[in-house]
């Protein structure tokens, strides 16, 4: 079998009446864009890391391959996500993010460890013989064909291209949605165990005793 990217490139070129649209470098660049976008939106590549907390330090660097935060856990609880703008209000507990930083509120007053679950970007393709990372399933490689066609045709303009590019974009978006569900439900039978949604208000009360008291 061809390498995955060469196969996808052949699919783009075969029968095309505009072969100049599918040059190696242009397509490789768009493959990388599509791969990055699909990884970020679907969070199909998950990673777990720990962040050691330092007294009086609220903000910490995110891992370099961080695409989006999926959950932050501390001392047995998931921390809620806060808006950056409200993170510094009194009595706020949670995490916030901006640039390449993650912040913990309130500012830690003691040492500890935060667990960060995040979706990461795949390693970019260096050339057309590069391969996808293991966590990006083979069944979804075809998404990149739709992504590249969408982008190239929208760049070309013209009524026919625009209509077709819309359909390609829909296919890509729907596929990313399926990939996201796939990533979230790799194990399809899990039910909340430790912390059911019904228990969450009580948890919040434990995290915010002063709020609870009001």
């Amino acid at each position, binding site marked *: *079998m061809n390498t995955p990217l060469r196969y996808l490139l052949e699919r783009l070129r*075969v029968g095309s009446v505009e072969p100049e649209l599918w040059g190696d470098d242009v397509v490789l660049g768009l493959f990388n864009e599509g791969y990055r976008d699909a990884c970020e939106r679907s969070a199909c590549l998950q990673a777990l890391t720990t962040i050691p907390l330092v007294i009086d330090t609220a903000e910490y660097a995110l891992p370099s391959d961080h695409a989006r935060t999926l959950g932050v*856990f501390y001392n047995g*609880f*998931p921390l809620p996500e806060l808006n950056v703008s409200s993170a510094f209000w009194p009595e706020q507990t949670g995490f916030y993010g901006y640039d390449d930083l993650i912040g913990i509120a309130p500012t830690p007053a003691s040492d500890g460890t935060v667990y960060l679950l995040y979706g990461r970007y795949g390693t970019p393709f260096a050339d057309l013989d590069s391969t996808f990372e293991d966590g990006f*399933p083979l069944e979804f490689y075809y998404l990149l064909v739709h992504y590249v066609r969408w982008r190239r045709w929208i760049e070309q303009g013209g009524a026919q291209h625009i209509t077709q590019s819309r359909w390609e974009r829909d296919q890509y978006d729907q596929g990313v949605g399926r990939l996201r569900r796939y990533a979230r439900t*790799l194990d399809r039978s899990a039910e*909340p165990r430790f*912390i059911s949604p019904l228990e969450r208000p009580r948890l919040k009360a434990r995290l915010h005793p002063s709020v609870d008291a009001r």
Partner: protein
Amino acid sequence: VAVAESDRFVEAETRVAVDTLVFEKKATLDVDVDGFATLPSDLIYLEGLYSETTPLDPLLLEDYLAFLSGPGMSGYIGDSAYTILGRQLRVIPTGARTLTLFYWARPPETDGVTFTLSGPALSLVRHLKLAYQELDRGEPEVGAMEIAQYELDARRVRRRSREKRAFHDSLRSPLAR
């Protein structure tokens, strides 16, 4: 430029397998002392995990991580339970052991002549392959129509497979479940 037929069939068969979930497998998995094991590379969805004949409880990843991060909600730690992080299986309580797993799998690469899927699923493979071919050949309208039809048919096959499973489950006694 030509696209190899077998490559097209590989692409179509793997997508049909994930869209229909009709290909199941059983395997054993060695869990290390930390409770970690790498899932089989052809696993699409995990269906069930057993320690001998005892099923392990699935845990939401976020519940597992909450447990891992500290003592806050550690009230529950009953029988063995597991979660999945990326391609890694994590079992608690930790300790080396061998587990049996049942899962929906990705078929091995076809040569375009011999296929793993059969029956209605194999018809879908041929249908999808043709749809891709039409799309690539500069017939986007025909290809789009065929893809839409494929998606409807795939849903139907998947539903039928689920119904069959539910029927078989209903025949088993509650004690055997």
